[in-house]
């Protein structure tokens, strides 16, 4: 659906975005991650037509932003980092204005009623935007992005500034919207990306350093398995030495257990070797009770930190 080809954006001599290319398939939900200043908002602003790229091409369904910007922009709903609200308007007037500039074909009243209900803004529809709380303003920004029901939604940190219950509401709304829209979402809350997105694009210093599903990234990044073991407190290092003798185990770190009277072990093993069954056998043979044995999954946070750090080091 969206095709971004070799986009570069220069500010003076500095490249904010450096030759990036990716595509979004119809109906997909893609997370756009990166540390502050990585170029995420710049990329989103280029895709939405707010700023022009120095080089490169962006198109939606083969309509290029340079050739036919009006048709191109009709396909996008954009929620920037700061919701672009005219504070002297009421919510209803604001959405009517958005309907007019987006030149939607549907009856404005029906459209506004539908969106207000969807984003749960019924209580404040007649209020001036300047009198709304941050959470409501964010939702009002969300509402304007949905006007005209554009097939592609570009959301720059949609849950920033919201309280936990509002975050849950917006996430559930995003999950509903996933059914009918393609979503391109930037967020610093990685659990949000994990929950909503099928794929992740990771940007650092203006370059794409990863573009894959979370599972594939975990697999690529995993140079070993991490296992957590919980046994009864023993007061010696016998368990640790037994584990370290098992072929394939690379390291074993012993810590005081989360539960009282327990001992936790974080075991790293080589990727190609399944050691959990051997650990069980060895410990049972030595009459050591096992209270818990589980694989520790690498989180998106781990992948994010690892990739951004290694990419940063590579460029130094």
């Amino acid at each position, binding site marked *: 659906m969206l095709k971004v080809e070799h986009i570069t954006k220069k500010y003076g001599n500095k490249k904010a975005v450096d030759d990036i290319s990716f595509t979004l398939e119809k109906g997909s939900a893609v997370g756009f991650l990166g540390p502050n200043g990585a170029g995420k908002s710049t990329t989103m602003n280029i895709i939405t037509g707010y700023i022009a790229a120095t080089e490169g091409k962006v198109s939606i369904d083969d309509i290029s932003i340079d050739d036919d910007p009006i048709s191109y922009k*009709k396909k996008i709903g954009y929620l920037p980092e700061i919701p672009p609200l005219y504070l002297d308007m009421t919510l209803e007037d604001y959405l009517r204005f958005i309907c007019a500039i987006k030149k939607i074909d549907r009856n404005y009243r029906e459209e506004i009623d539908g969106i207000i209900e969807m984003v749960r803004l019924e209580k404040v529809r007649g209020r001036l935007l300047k009198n709304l709380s941050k959470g409501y303003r964010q939702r009002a920004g969300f509402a304007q992005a949905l006007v005209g029901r554009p097939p592609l939604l570009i959301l720059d940190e949609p849950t920033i500034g919201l309280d936990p219950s509002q975050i849950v509401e917006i996430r559930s709304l995003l999950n509903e919207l996933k059914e009918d829209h393609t979503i391109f979402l930037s967020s610093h809350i990685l659990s949000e990306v994990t929950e909503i997105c099928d794929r992740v694009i990771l940007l650092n210093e203006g370059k794409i350093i990863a573009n894959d599903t979370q599972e594939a990234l975990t697999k690529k990044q995993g140079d070993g398995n991490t296992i957590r073991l919980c046994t009864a407190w023993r007061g010696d290092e016998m368990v640790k030495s037994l584990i370290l003798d098992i072929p394939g185990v690379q390291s074993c770190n012993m810590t005081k257990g989360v539960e009282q009277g327990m001992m936790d072990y974080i075991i790293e093993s080589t990727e190609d070797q399944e050691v959990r069954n051997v650990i069980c056998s060895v410990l049972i043979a030595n009459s050591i009770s096992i209270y818990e044995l589980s694989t520790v999954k690498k989180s998106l946070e781990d992948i994010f930190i690892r990739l951004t750090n290694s990419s940063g080091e590579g460029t130094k």
Partner: protein
Amino acid sequence: MKTIFKKEMNHYFKNMAGYIFLAIFLVITGYYFTVNNLLAQSNDVKEYFNTMIFTLMFLIPILTMRLFAEERKSKTDQVLFTSPIKILDIVLGKYIAVCVVFLMGLAVTFAYVITIGVLGELELFTVIGCYVGIIFAAGSFIAMGLFVSSITENQIVAAILTYAILLGFYVINLLADYVNNPLMVVILDWLAIFRRFSDFSMGIFNPSTLLYYISLSGLFLFLTVCSVTRKR
């Protein structure tokens, strides 16, 4: 364009900017009418319109300063430039809105002219010339203000810069009398926006002067479109 025009008109009259402009404009023009025409028992409208154009030099920046500067500062320009609407339509919508606010103020001054007509003899062609002249001259001032607003995100800077540019043109107007170099005379004459208005105030309907103001407005509107496009 219509949508942007309506938004701007709403803004002027939901906030104080439109009312402030109209109030100051009408107080100043009303004062000059009272002193120069009513109290002096004069039917001469030329002087009245000459002071009006001088007043506009100070007042138009109040109307134009926020047009793009405020949008950029509050990031609401993100809505405009990511919507399926042409930049030219945005620029024209804003321009026409300011022109209409100015015309609203100007319309009230008909009452003064009618008063002169009722109490004395009215020089009809001079009045028509003055109105046509002031409308087109103000149109070019507004286009300049719109352009300046598009190059900064600070409203105060936009207002001061617009005022400085208009004041610069006014000074050029005065300098033209003291220059002898033929080339400089031609250049200064071309830049003498205020002097050209005197054709109209003398009741001379000069199409070239009209074309001059239209060209000037067109030039600054074009520069505004370029400035907004370049900023993208």
